[in-house]
Each structure stands twice: as structure tokens, then as C-alpha cells.
């Protein structure tokens, strides 16, 4: 894939020679006979906003807690800025954490909560409170310093938690589901607020989330986790467009998955036998595949075009009947039952269509380009 190379220093992970800022080396964590994190290795660079994405119980929070020092790895090592964190207790680590529950001290005012970290360093009260006031200004809560946490709304508490975690200017900020407790609209606003703050301060953020939209919006890179293992690491676009496995393809966004067999490699096109799709599917030639091998094809719903007449130019065309149409404002989602009996999902933006929209029970052609059919071996 050729993607535009922007200024190299904004994407240090693209340079394999660059030493990562945080090195996670073969980390394993077992609780009794349950393995929460299984031999994970990961490098995160300075200034990144890295998202650990996965369902509940995938080990993402355990990994974050090991970075903070609340859990000790069973095996492996964590290095931050070249320093081994092995025996460093949480109160001596250059990390700070924003907790999922925010964990604001209920008996302290907002400014005391925010200044807490500085006072522990032995800073004078006057300076600590002055800095806390500055921090509160950055999260737009300058007039709330004297309130107690229970007098704030959920969104305000979230910002206090962020201010408190950032005030010591940690090398790494760990965020556990930072937006999980907010409602949808507030969450979207706060996502961009988080990015703004991260870019202003240049602190490395590691965010744990189960929300793929959140990860896609926030992250410079995403690590998709399942069963204690990182399935794939990459930029949001890379993860979405070129998932490595069926799990990643299915977890990020919605996808139509087909089972297929490698049939023949023509010089310019490779042919897959895909009974579910009603015959052969043409894809760009790929290395590492042998004839007769079972593979899977991932086809994003927005990569499929529906039409009443058979398109002439398309290489891959399927025939089916529209079973269901969902109108979602900016786009429509279709459920099309192919003649093979297989159901596929198709989405189309509503501004493209001219004339009478395709409706229930219509016979349609579903076509897609060869590149749209991503071949997966896992």
C-alpha cells in the first residue's frame, strides 16, 4: 500500500530504527490459572495517543494497570524512557492515570483534588494551588475550584479527573475508558477536547477503550486486543482498511465475511472460489497463497454498490433481493439476500442517489471492485 508520507517525525512508528518511548517486552500476567495478558510486546512512541481496543476481559485494563504499577507482571519487562519499571512502586512512576470511575477524593474540593499530586511532591501550597488553578482553566473549570466532586456533573468530574492526572506532567498518561461514563453527545465533544489537550501538552497518552468509534477518532495508533493477545497494531485507517484477521475485521466497523478457496492466479487477477457469493470472485494477485488454500474475504458494506441494471465495467457482480432498508439520515443501510441464500449488508450515502431510491423486495445487482475484497488467512 502506498500512503502519503507526511513529515516523518509526526509518525515515528513508521521508522523501524526509532527507539520507542515505552517498551512492553513479552509481558504475561496470570491470575491463578487465568492468563489475562499473554506474552504481549509493544512499542509506543513519545507523543503518541495510543488506544488499546478490545471487548471486556481481553486484558486491556490489566495491561494498563501494569503500566501504572498496580499489577506486577508475571513475566516480562516494561521500560519507560529507557528505565525498567520492574520494582518501581506506583507512587514513584512517571505515569499518571485517569480512572474509569474518576476516583476523585470525595472529601476534598476540586482544587485540592487537582493539587494533590503536587503537594505530595513537597511543593508549597501557594504554588500548588496556583498551578491547580491554571490546570482547571485549561479544562475550563476555573470557577469550580471550591466545589466538592459530588456537586459537579459527570462531564465536569471527568475534566477534574483529567486535570488531576495531568498536573504532575507525567511522561505517560494512562486513561481507563476516559469517556465511558459520558452520554453520546458529550462523548463526541470530549474526544476532540482530549486530542486538543494531548497535542498542547505533548504528553504520551495510552487510552483503554471498548468503543471502536472512540479509538478510531482519538488514536494515532490502535492495538486491537483479544484473549490477552494483541491481534493487530496499526493506524486507524490501516486497521480498518487492511485488517489482519477476521476478528479485527469484524470488531472494527461492520463487515461481510466470506469463506473462499484459492482457485487460480492469472497474471493480473487472482480467482477465488466463493460459493456463498455465487461463484468466482476476482481479487488483486497476492503473495503467500497456494492453490486450494482456504481463505476468508472481508467486504466492507460501503464498498458495495447496488444498482437495478447490471453494471458493465464491474469485475465482481452478485445478484440478490433487497430484504430490508434502514434510513439513517446521511446514509441508508440495506440487507440484501443473495441468490445463494447468503445475506449481506450494504451501506450507501444518501447524497449519491438520483431518481427513485432502491426499496424493499427489488431485484438488484451488488458490485464491488477487486481491491475491496480483503483476503484474510487468519
Amino acid at each position, binding site marked *: 500500500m502506498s500512503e502519503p508520507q507526511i513529515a516523518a517525525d509526526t509518525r515515528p512508528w513508521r521508522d523501524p530504527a526509532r527507539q520507542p518511548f515505552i517498551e512492553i517486552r513479552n509481558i504475561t500476567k496470570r491470575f491463578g490459572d487465568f492468563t489475562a495478558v499473554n506474552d504481549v510486546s509493544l512499542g509506543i512512541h513519545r507523543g503518541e495517543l495510543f488506544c488499546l481496543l478490545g471487548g471486556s476481559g481481553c486484558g486491556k485494563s490489566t495491561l494498563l494497570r501494569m503500566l501504572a504499577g498496580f499489577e506486577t507482571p508475571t513475566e516480562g519487562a516494561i521500560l519507560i524512557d529507557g528505565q525498567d519499571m520492574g520494582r518501581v512502586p506506583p*507512587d514513584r512512576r512517571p505515569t499518571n492515570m485517569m480512572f474509569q470511575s474518576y476516583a476523585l477524593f470525595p*472529601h476534598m474540593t476540586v482544587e485540592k483534588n487537582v493539587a494533590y499530586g503536587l503537594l505530595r511532591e513537597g511543593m508549597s501550597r501557594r504554588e500548588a494551588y496556583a498551578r491547580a488553578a491554571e490546570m482547571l482553566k485549561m479544562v475550563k473549570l476555573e470557577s469550580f475550584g471550591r466545589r*466538592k466532586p459530588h456537586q459537579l456533573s459527570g462531564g465536569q468530574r471527568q475534566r477534574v479527573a483529567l486535570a488531576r492526572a495531568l498536573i504532575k506532567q507525567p511522561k505517560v498518561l494512562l486513561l481507563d475508558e476516559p469517556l465511558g461514563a459520558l452520554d453520546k453527545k458529550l462523548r463526541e465533544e470530549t474526544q476532540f477536547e482530549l486530542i486538543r489537550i494531548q497535542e498542547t501538552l505533548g504528553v504520551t497518552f495510552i487510552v483503554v477503550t471498548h468503543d471502536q468509534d472512540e479509538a478510531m477518532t482519538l488514536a494515532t495508533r490502535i492495538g486491537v486486543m483479544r484473549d490477552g493477545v494483541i491481534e493487530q497494531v496499526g493506524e486507524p485507517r490501516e486497521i480498518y482498511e487492511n485488517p489482519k484477521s477476521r476478528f479485527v475485521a469484524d470488531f472494527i466497523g461492520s463487515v461481510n465475511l466470506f469463506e473462499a478457496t484459492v482457485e487460480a492466479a492469472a497474471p493480473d487477477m487472482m480467482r477465488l472460489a466463493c460459493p456463498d457469493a455465487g461463484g468466482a470472485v476476482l481479487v488483486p494477485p497476492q503473495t503467500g497463497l497456494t492453490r486450494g488454500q482456504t481463505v476468508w474475504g472481508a467486504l466492507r458494506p460501503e464498498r458495495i454498490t447496488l444498482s437495478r441494471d447490471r453494471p458493465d465495467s464491474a469485475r465482481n457482480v452478485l445478484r440478490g433481493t433487497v430484504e430490508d432498508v434502514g434510513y439513517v439520515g446521511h446514509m441508508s443501510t440495506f440487507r440484501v439476500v443473495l441468490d445463494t441464500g447468503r445475506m449481506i449488508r450494504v451501506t450507501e450515502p444518501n447524497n449519491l442517489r438520483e431518481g427513485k431510491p432502491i426499496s424493499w423486495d427489488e431485484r438488484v445487482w451488488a458490485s464491488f471492485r477487486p481491491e475491496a475484497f480483503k483476503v484474510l488467512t487468519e
Partner: protein
Amino acid sequence: MSAAPGNPLTRSAPWRGTARVFGWLGISGRTLVIAIPMLWLLVFFLVPFFVLGRISLAEAIIARPPYTPLWERDADGTLQIIATLENYRWLMEDRLYANAYLSSIRIAVVSTIFALLIGYPMAYFIARSPEPRRSILLLLVILPFWTSFLLRVYAWMGFLRREGVINNFLIWAGVIDSPLTMLQTDFAVYIGIVYTYLPFMILPLYANLTKLDDAHLEAAADLGASPMVTFFTVTLPLSLPGIVAGSMLVFIPAIGEYVIPALLGGPDTLMIGRVLWDEFFSSRDWPVASAVAIVMLVLVVAPIMWLQSVQNRRELK
């Protein structure tokens, strides 16, 4: 009033009848539920309090009952109310009473502090223990209540005597040459009170400390607080309600304690419970004894009401 079928909360037939009767009288179920404890307090606290208050205003006479009536009819039939504050003046004049009050307060305060110092780590340890062990430890705290309180105080006498377990052990171990005098001292009283009321300190503290959120402790550690600093800046302030409740439950019974100072204390251990006993049964001066009781009640209730109002104000804030 037709009941919806299948609703488990629907009243059964006899209740419905009762409710209707009370309904005619203008009494709702809610009033009824509150009325029972109110009635209890009225009969067993407020009425005896007024009886005491009335006796404290009388004069002692040799009669049965041993105090003057509250009112008398004169020869011409006018009603005369006889009340005197003489007994309260007497309490103020005789240093014995002031000393007894002060000494009681001192013993109760010291005992409460020691109960807190011993009870807090125990409550903390129990609250932080994993579940099966936690129940066993809690049971062990409550276990002494299954034996008689008097028996347990007598057991302490056996420990603290000159030829008791502790002295014998210390002499055997070569720590001391001659036995220590522990029984019939204030020290023995402190031991008795702290031992007896320790569970009342532990249980409210435990209830408070189990609610402590691990995330708060982790947040403190994350922000650079050592375990010690975390304890003093987070755990301790958050457990303040438990400390107040436990201290009240120890302080209030300790201040009026009679049995423990009588059995373990010496002749110079002056506590108000003992003065009260002497006035009632030795001097048979019921009016002075009542005045002593009323003053003690005021001394105990006033700080509690103040604390309550402070706490309410804090919660409202």
C-alpha cells in the same frame, strides 16, 4: 380497593380490614410504622426522664417514696407546687460531684482513644481481608458477647490480681521480682472498659472501611502518595463517620459505667455511676441522685446533638 391478581405485595384479607379501620381513624400505614418506635421512646425514655426530673426537684424525706410530693393542698384548699433547685445547688457546691463528672469524662475519653487505637487497625484488617476469612474474623469480634459480661470482668480480675496470671507469668519470665499492683487501679478500669466496648468501636469502623473504594487508594498512590501518606490523606478522612460512630458507642456507655469501676477499680476511682449508686442505695437520697442523673444526661446528650448537627450540615453542603 380491588387487588390486582398475581401481585405479591397485595395485602391479605385481614390486613385489608385492619387498614380500613385505621383509615377511618385517619391513620395511614406510614404513621403506624413510625408510631411504634416513637411510642417505645416515649414510654421507656421520655416518661422515666420526666419522672427523674420531677424527683430531682423534690426534697429527701424519710418516707415511702423517699421524697416530697410535687404539690400539696393547703388548709384553705389552694394548690401549692413544691419544687426546689436545692439539689442542683448541692451538686455545684460539693466538689465530690464535679470531680466525679470530670473523672468519668477523663476515663471515658482515655478509654475511647485506646479503643480507637486498637480497634481501627483491627477493623481495617478485617475489612481488607478476603471474604471467607472476613466472616470468621467478624464472628470472633462478636464472640465474647455470647458469655456473660460479669463473668468476663471476673476473668479480668483473675488476670490482674497480685497472684494472677499476668504477675505469675512476668515473675516466671524474670521480668519483675515482686508482683505489680494492677487490680483496683485506674489502669484496670481502662483495660476493662476498652476490652468490653472494643466491638462497639470495631463494628461501625468495619462497616465504614468495607465501603472504601480501592480506586481512591490507587489514585493517591498514582499521584505520588506513599502508603502512609495515603492513609492519612485519604483513608482516615473518609472513615471519619465510622470513627465518630464508634467513639460515641464507646464513650457514652463508658461515661456512666458502674460495674467495671466497681469490680476492677480502686476505692479512689471516682466515677459518676458509682456516685449515683451510692446516693440511691446508701444515702437513699433520691432527689440528689436524680439530679446527678439528669446532669449526666445533659452532659452526654449535648455533645452528641452538636456532633449530629455538624454532620448533617456537612452532608447538606
